């Protein structure tokens, strides 16, 4: 394997006296979808929060494309090409699709001090993107996010990550609360993102969903990585379940 996109080294995280992560090492390659599995409280969300700048790490290093990175805030992570899509804190329901896509990085026109948004351009880029991620219905880019379905919202968030050319897209339980068709849609967006050159970390409790989309599976238990390289093509769901619950450590 040549130089990894992300290289997390000896990551440890304490919440007060709770040790959420213990000496975690994880590499993510370019163009790879990694499924992150583990039971409730295993530390999955904590690990990606550390990577996305939402919580500070206690000790350890994060290297990105061979360079040591300082990630102290979510904007640091975004600048380093890491986009995180949280189920409920990705989008603003009252704002339109286009305004959400460009939130924090609005396109502007006219003199700088007028701070004027280029709404026409933002809307046309948004329409183009919506077509690209294949939202089936013809939804205008001025529609407020609040009137979209859960799957469509995920699609908008993924489209945004793709548009801003992030190297790594992190999805924490993106298929929770979604119907069958919408889940298939989201899995398709994830694969499309990989095919257009992005890497993904995909967290889900539904192992079937993970199996359908990932290149490699990583399993955590009690703040540690217990399996790092499970291949969905060679192992079965039952095997993975055993690793998650710790019934049988032999794979």
């Amino acid at each position, binding site marked *: 394997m040549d130089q990894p996109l992300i290289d997390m080294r000896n990551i440890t995280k304490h919440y007060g006296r709770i040790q959420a992560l213990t000496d975690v090492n994880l590499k993510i390659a370019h163009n790879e979808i990694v499924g992150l599995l583990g039971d409730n409280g295993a530390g999955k969300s904590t690990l990606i929060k550390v990577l996305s700048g939402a919580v500070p790490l206690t000790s350890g290093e994060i290297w990105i494309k061979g360079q040591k990175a300082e990630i102290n805030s979510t*904007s640091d992570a975004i600048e380093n090409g890491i986009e995180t899509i949280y189920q409920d804190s*990705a989008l603003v*329901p*009252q704002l339109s699709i286009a305004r959400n896509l*460009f*939130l924090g990085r609005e396109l502007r026109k006219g003199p700088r001090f007028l701070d004027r948004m280029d709404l026409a351009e933002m809307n046309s880029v948004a329409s183009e993107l919506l077509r690209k991620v294949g939202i089936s219905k*013809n939804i205008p880019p001025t529609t407020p996010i609040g009137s979209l379905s859960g799957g469509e919202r995920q699609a908008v968030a993924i489209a945004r990550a793709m548009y801003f050319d992030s190297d790594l897209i992190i999805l924490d339980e993106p298929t929770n609360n979604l119907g069958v068709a919408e889940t298939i849609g989201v899995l398709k967006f994830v694969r499309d993102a990989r095919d257009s050159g992005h890497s993904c970390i995909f967290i889900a409790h539904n192992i079937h969903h993970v199996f359908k989309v990932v290149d490699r599976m990583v399993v955590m238990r009690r703040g540690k990585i217990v399996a790092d390289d499970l291949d969905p093509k060679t192992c079965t769901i039952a095997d993975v379940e055993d690793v998650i619950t710790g019934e049988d450590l032999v794979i």
Partner: protein
Amino acid sequence: MQRSLLGRFIDRPEFGPFVLLVVMIVVFTSINPAFISLLNIGNTLAFTVELGLIALAMTLLMTSGEFDLSVGAVFGFSAVVMWTLFNTDIMSLPVAFLTALGIALFIGFVSGVFVTILAIPSFLVTLGMLLVVRGSALWVTDGFPQRSWRAGDQWLAEVLVGDFWICNWTIQQTTCNPGLRVYMSVIWFTLFAILCHYVLTRTAFGNWITACGGNPSAARNRGVKVTRVKIILFMFSSFMAGLAGIISSIRTTAANPNSGAGYELEVIAMVVIGGTALMGGRGTILGTVLGIFILRLMRNGIVLIGVPGLAYNIFIGAIILGMMALHSWLERRHNAGT
């Protein structure tokens, strides 16, 4: 997806207040035609804009998910500060004016810091600030009003509240008949209303304001500086309260340390009647302008049609309840329709 023009108009938050305003004007005018006279309009406008200036700023602040209960106190305090500094010959009027507004900005800054950085709810922070500021106004003045009649010969007073007449031309006459009396403050109000509307709907900063109120963690995750946005809006609302208080003191030729008491609630009422959400994420300047006129015309109208002025609050309370019911009905209709 295509809905009729009417359907889309009904879905707008300004729909309810607009209809109410039209109904009020029709009802009041049919009972007492003097309601629509130029004299009455001129007088109503002058009072209206002072609270209106605060309501514009409060709209932006409430859209970001916060509100400020100290605006009435700042309204009274700023004027007191300016006139005390001027009357004791410490400063010239323009310098005293800038100093008073600077203090107002500082008050807003402190509220903003307490709300954002210390994460204390704005209700508690600005309630505390209300008491501190009102107390300071009473303490500085020993409770006595400051005279402000020396404003007469000051250009600053002219710029802020000077008045002029819009001519009432008729075809035959070539001279100017005084028609509508307009105060400079009306011009200021119009300019600020346009500015606030532009900021909220057209600028990136406006996008951030809505995002801060609609989903603060989403805004933060996108690199929006939520803390900074809110502090700026607290400062702006405090600034506008100070400006309004000074304008009012010049118009009424007195700076009373008690003036502005209760204004905070009237201003918040104007804003929510106009369709801005108390909890943030939805704000409309157009609606606020309608809300300002609804409350002011109601106060003015019920007196003109012979209802005792003391009954005013009954009507205002009923309007608030009615408007909230309408907005929540529209919200449900909207969610059901998609």
